[in-house]
């Protein structure tokens, strides 16, 4: 076991938490990510591999699904897997094992920062950030879009819980954008 100490995307040892009005904004460093993309002609096998990891249905375009391990659709025949870091640091190895050579798997844990917005009235925040139609972006929805010039994955976990994965190097910029939008909305 190595002895290196991890830092969060915002550069601290502990995640950043903000509250404003009815909304909380939390940095969520505790997740492992791995991308999985079907090899040519192995689209079905890849879906099956994903199902073995996340449960009965692999998410279609615009969605996420799963429980401890979840998957969200990121492109044609491509998904991102996400699971708690403590239990699944080696998520990518698990995915490689399940893929059995039928899919390409890449570790993505360090590539993204994740911020979660919780509270009522999230639409008022989101409409200041990105063009997602919040009326139809219900629990189970997942999409990638641009937030202040940053390509981000946005997942609706539940009505009052949205998570946003942004490029890790831009964590501070993204955090600033999110906090600014919350303060403008409430």
């Amino acid at each position: 076991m190595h002895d290196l100490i991890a830092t969060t995307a915002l550069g601290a040892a502990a995640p950043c938490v903000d509250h404003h009005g009815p909304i909380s904004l939390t940095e969520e460093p505790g997740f492992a990510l791995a991308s999985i993309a079907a090899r040519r002609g192995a689209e079905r096998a890849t879906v099956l591999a994903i199902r073995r990891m996340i449960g009965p249905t692999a998410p279609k375009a615009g969605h996420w699904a799963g429980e401890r391990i979840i998957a969200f659709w990121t492109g044609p025949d491509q998904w991102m897997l996400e699971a708690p870091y403590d239990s699944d640091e080696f998520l990518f190895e698990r995915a490689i094992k399940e893929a059995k050579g039928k899919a390409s798997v890449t570790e993505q844990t360090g590539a993204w920062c994740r911020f979660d917005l919780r509270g009522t009235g999230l639409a008022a925040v989101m409409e200041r950030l990105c063009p997602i139609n919040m009326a139809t972006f219900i629990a189970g929805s997942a999409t990638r879009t641009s937030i202040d010039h940053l390509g981000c994955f946005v997942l609706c976990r539940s009505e009052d819980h949205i998570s946003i994965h942004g490029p890790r190097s831009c964590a501070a910029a993204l955090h600033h954008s999110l906090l600014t939008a919350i303060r403008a909305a409430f």
Partner: protein
Amino acid sequence: MIINHPLLGPRDSAEFTYMGDAKLIDRPDWQAPEALAQFIDYGYMRDNPDGAHRELWYHEQGDRSFLVVTRDTTTHEIFAVELARDVARSRGQSR
């Protein structure tokens, strides 16, 4: 503009990067007898129609699909949106 992505539905064109005439799919055979002339035409000559234009849009801030959008260059009306990969295959591009 709004591009009706075949997989994701209507999306703001601001999420996309424009990549030019869809003829760029029809890359010539490098071993054809007139390969150089064909590549010059491929690289430089354009129909540039005032009307329906087939063009490539890359969903760079989205799912990274290349799309072939058929759009009227005089009204910006969009008639069809296809995955470029499907179009490329149908036009004989393979490997």
